[in-house]
């Protein structure tokens, strides 16, 4: 705002202004009441200062109307602020349907950002302006946090699960991103820039440079190299067509949604949640695939679903899906749309979800 003495970062995303308005309101409330109290205290302290040893106070012990007043007014302000903040937050949490997804892996002490079309960036993120972008993130080691002040978004990046944020940039330029969850020695230098470009420039950037393989095609290659095809292409393991986002019935009778977390768990800990009708014969790939490779496999598997790769409006899974976690009932997705097909199991599909807490 003011040259040389900013009070807020650039407003570079669609939600930034809304957040700032709420912030200004809160600032006004804070400054008003602080001033009010300080002034009241000073006024009373001066007006009623002790002028002599014999000075008497006038005892006033309470006033129910006043107590009610200064309970109701703060309550009202709190309720108003809470409602404003929550509704804004809910709106800001849901990525638009058409958001394109970029995959982010954080590790001590760098960021790897993978575009589905292929390019992989280190500590830098190129995005087109005016288009919604969803970042799906995970960590290889400790908890990090991906924070872009100019976009007013951040989210912890947690090992063992996927979290996500979304934003739509409204200006071109370079905007800092930081790691915002203390992660060890070089936490303070684990950041970089989001570079927002016009759509044309972005297309150019994407296709220019080293000929990079798209995530889907890299994933397809891994599917063969890691011999997944020997079971999943022959009926010994469930096929991948229309798998992503569908409801999978497990051997213990419960149902789970085949999202990123479940599929990652199957790759790393195959014996924990096995689809009904299949034998526990899948070997683990733990130690043989990196987090980036898992994301490539996921991209490939998503591409085999007719519903498309994007599952709109799906926030982070909670309760957190752990590696090997036997969560019955799957994720409670807010507003998520699932593909209607279920994984074909020899005994036919089960109807309905059995929720387990």
């Amino acid at each position: 705002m003011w040259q040389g003495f900013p009070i807020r970062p650039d407003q570079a995303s669609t939600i930034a202004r809304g957040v700032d308005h709420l912030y200004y309101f809160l600032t006004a409330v804070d400054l008003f009441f602080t001033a009010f109290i300080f002034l009241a205290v000073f006024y009373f302290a001066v007006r009623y200062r002790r002028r002599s040893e014999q000075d008497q106070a006038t005892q006033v012990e309470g006033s129910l109307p006043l107590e009610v007043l200064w309970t109701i007014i703060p309550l009202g302000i709190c309720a108003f602020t809470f409602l404003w903040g929550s509704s804004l937050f809910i709106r800001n949490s849901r990525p638009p349907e058409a958001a394109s997804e970029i995959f982010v892996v954080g590790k001590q002490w760098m960021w790897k950002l993978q575009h589905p079309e292929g390019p992989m960036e280190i500590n830098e993120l190129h995005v087109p302006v005016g288009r919604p972008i969803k970042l799906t993130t995970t960590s290889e080691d400790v908890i990090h946090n991906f924070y872009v002040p100019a976009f007013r978004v951040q989210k912890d990046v947690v090992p063992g699960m996927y979290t996500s944020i979304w934003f739509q940039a409204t200006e071109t330029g370079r905007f800092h991103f930081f790691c915002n969850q203390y992660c060890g020695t070089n936490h303070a230098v684990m950041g970089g820039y989001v570079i927002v470009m016009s759509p044309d420039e972005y297309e150019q950037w994407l296709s220019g440079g080293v000929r990079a393989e798209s995530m889907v095609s890299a994933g397809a290659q891994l599917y063969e190299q890691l011999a997944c095809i020997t079971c999943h292409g022959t009926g010994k393991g469930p096929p991948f067509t229309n798998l992503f986002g569908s409801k999978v019935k497990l051997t213990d009778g419960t149902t789970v949604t085949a999202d990123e977390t479940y599929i990652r768990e199957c790759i790393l800990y195959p014996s924990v949640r096995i689809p009904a009708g299949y034998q526990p014969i899948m070997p683990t790939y733990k130690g043989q695939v990196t987090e980036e490779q898992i994301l490539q496999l996921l991209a490939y598997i998503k591409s085999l679903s007719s519903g498309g790769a994007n599952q709109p409006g799906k926030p982070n899974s909670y309760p957190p899906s752990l590696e090997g976690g036997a969560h019955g009932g799957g994720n409670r997705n807010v507003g998520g749309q699932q593909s209607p097909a279920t994984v074909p199991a020899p005994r036919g599909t089960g109807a309905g979800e059995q929720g387990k807490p």
Partner: protein
Amino acid sequence: MHSSTAALAEQFDDLEQQHEASSFGMWIFLATEVMFFGGLFTAYILFRNFYLPAFEAGSRILDVKIGAANTAILLCSSLTMALAVRAAQLGKKAALISFLLLTLLLGLTFVGIKLGLEWRHDYLEGFAPGVNWTFTGPDSRHLELFFCFYFFLTGVHALHMVIGAGILTVLIIMAARGRFSPQRYNAVEVSGLYWHFVDIVWIFLYPLLYLIGGRY
């Protein structure tokens, strides 16, 4: 806790106040213990929910019969403790000492069985996380987590029992020296509260650890 059996402590106005403060203090302490064990129970239940097959397998590895025997021993010890308090109330010194001794014996038997029999067996079989873990089957990590909780929970419980045994020993010595009377037995009563609480913790531990192994 010792003060009420001596003369009236300086900070109190009369024996009744001392008695009340002592009992109330023990109840507050037990409240902190509820939070302590409660926190552990919560973590255990959560993980059991996440990793049900492994935790059920772990439950099945534990010996229900030994656990049942230990439960019976502890319940008896609570009975003898209650009888000890009653004996103190009535001024029956011999009965008081006998019941305290019995409680102590039963408590030590419990700890002996738990440590000497069960823990030793689990250790020798390779189910001791961090010291001797040899299980290599599927879900080994989660089974190890189960046993981690098992040893932690029963270990902390056993620690409380050992402390209780120490308290009982002190009480026995004091009783033998004639320190208790129908007007002054608060220490016995308050120790009884503690002992019953430790017993109740076990009543929760036994089913949570041993019984819900999907065997019924």
